[in-house]
């Protein structure tokens, strides 16, 4: 896979505040890439620099092989962005919002109608197309946001906390559409999120703190490095658990034993075959990865 975004030693300061500090990472074409960090870690600044909205102080940002300088219009046709806050024109209808955005990419007339039809089916827009944005629910707005961001068939879709505040059902349906788009159109997804279970499905993750990468890798690599696995064992006496000489915690119907990794879990189970009749091994979660890598608890906004 080719690199579609290449960030190389990029820095950006606001006065004395270093928002992004010597940041480097790669995003591959068609990849689902997650960019994590607490608020103020430098995620939005990096996104704004990738879009050409902000200038960098140092380093290089390449998108689709071109250096970003804010004026290259061809690059802007390759990127779609769903911003953290919905930036739709609230007094205009869903249809008008999409039509106006499409026209800024020179998609007009029949081309627009065809594309609108396609997106309308994908995001169920028909029933709400005449309604002003101000009358829509949060989930409906997000659907329109995403439809509008991909109206020009971009190669990269940047999603800045797209599902914050949405109910699980809506989040699930949005991800279903996005995953289909990835598979069918080889769309590269660049995601920032506070929901670690969303990031867990990524191909690659970069965790940012104070403008610098503090951890990166595939979800598995990160879990292996930063999160402990857990063995749950059920229907046994506490006396037997004590004999294992591992720290444990009582849970409903059993005990929870924290192990370093899967190897330690396997060794433990093999050594105590008679005891481990009813058990499960749970891999470390992305929440643990984030907590251990950054030292910060995540806030659900």
């Amino acid at each position, binding site marked *: 896979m080719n690199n579609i975004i290449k960030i190389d030693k990029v820095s950006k300061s606001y006065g004395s505040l270093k928002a992004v500090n010597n940041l480097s990472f790669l995003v591959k074409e068609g990849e689902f890439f997650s960019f994590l960090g607490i608020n103020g870690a430098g995620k939005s600044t990096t996104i704004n620099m990738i879009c*050409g909205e902000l*200038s960098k102080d140092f380093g290089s940002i390449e998108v689709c092989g071109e250096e970003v300088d804010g004026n290259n219009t061809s690059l802007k046709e390759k990127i779609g962005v769903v911003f953290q806050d919905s930036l739709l*024109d609230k007094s205009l209808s869903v249809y008008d919002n999409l039509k106006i955005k499409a026209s800024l990419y020179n998609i*007009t007339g029949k081309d627009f109608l065809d594309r609108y039809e396609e997106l309308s089916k994908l995001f169920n827009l028909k029933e709400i197309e005449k309604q002003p944005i101000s009358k829509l629910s949060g989930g409906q707005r997000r659907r329109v946001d995403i439809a509008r961001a991909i109206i020009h068939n971009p190669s990269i879709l940047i999603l800045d906390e797209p599902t914050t505040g949405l109910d699980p059902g809506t989040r699930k349906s949005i991800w279903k559409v996005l995953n289909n788009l990835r598979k069918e159109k080889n769309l590269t997804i660049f995601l920032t999120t506070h929901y670690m279970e969303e990031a867990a499905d990524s191909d690659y993750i970069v965790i940012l703190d104070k403008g610098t990468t503090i951890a990166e890798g595939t979800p598995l690599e990160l879990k292996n490095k930063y999160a402990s696995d857990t063995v749950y064992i059920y229907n046994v006496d506490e006396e037997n658990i004590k004999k294992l000489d591992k720290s444990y915690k009582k849970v409903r119907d059993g005990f929870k034993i924290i192990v370093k990794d899967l190897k330690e879990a396997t060794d433990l189970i093999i050594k105590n075959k008679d005891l481990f009749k009813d058990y499960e091994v749970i891999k470390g979660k992305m929440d643990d990865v984030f907590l251990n890598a950054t030292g910060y608890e995540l806030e659900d906004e």
Partner: protein
Amino acid sequence: MNKLISLTKRNIKVYFSDKKMFFTSLITPIILLVLYVTFLSGVFKDSFINAFPEGFKYTDKLLNSLVGGQLISSLLAVSCITVAFTSNLLMVQDKAEKTIKDINITPISKFTIGLSYFVSTFISTFIVNFTVTIVCFIYAHFFGTYMNINDMLNIVLDLLLLTLFGTSLSSVINFNLSTQGQVSAVGTIISAGYGFICGAYMPISSFGKGLQKVISFLPGTYGTSLLRNHALSSSFREMRNQHLPEELIDGFKKAFDCKIKLLNNYVSINSMYLIVTGFTLLFIVIFIFMNKHKKRS
């Protein structure tokens, strides 16, 4: 070009569909209308009657045409500027609500974006003011006027010029604003203050000499005066037809800001056009310069 047209259409649609923004822009003209209906028309009527020579038998039509001309010119002079300012606040609102980010990520130049705000402000302002003008002409028709088609066309020409002036002035002033607080502050100051300094509530001639001098250096003053001249010229023509002395008509012109002194000389109508056009062009050049040299942060 297509992108400019699309974005301009978007701005106009947002302005007319955003009820808050649309009605805010009409506050000053509405206040002025209420003031005329409840109070100012009576004051002007009395001052016109007192100014007529003793024994002169004025008709209601002449009196109403003078008061109507004063109302029309005041209303249009104010709304050309205040409507332009409020409709141009969309440029600031887009920054405050970050909508501009969504526009900036599209393949459209910053200059085209700036130009779209300018063109849409001009069109929206002209639509509102032209509607107000039609209402004013209907009002004048029913309450008494001597206006002919030439007078009306002159008023529409003034309207175009003053709308362009208001658009260019507001574009320069609003360019660097970026918060909702600034939007409210500018909106309030313009709405409340412009009616006074352009002589819509009280003729400039009734202000103190010092203030008159300061106001004579403001280009908008000549826009108001152009409207006064064209809205009242038919009434002055009628006064001549009724053989009223030229000195008296001249006195009316001075009292109602049809004649304004700049550096102790009366400014001719052509010079007024030149001043307003000149400043409009200057503001447009400044606005283009600001757009061209706007840096990414």
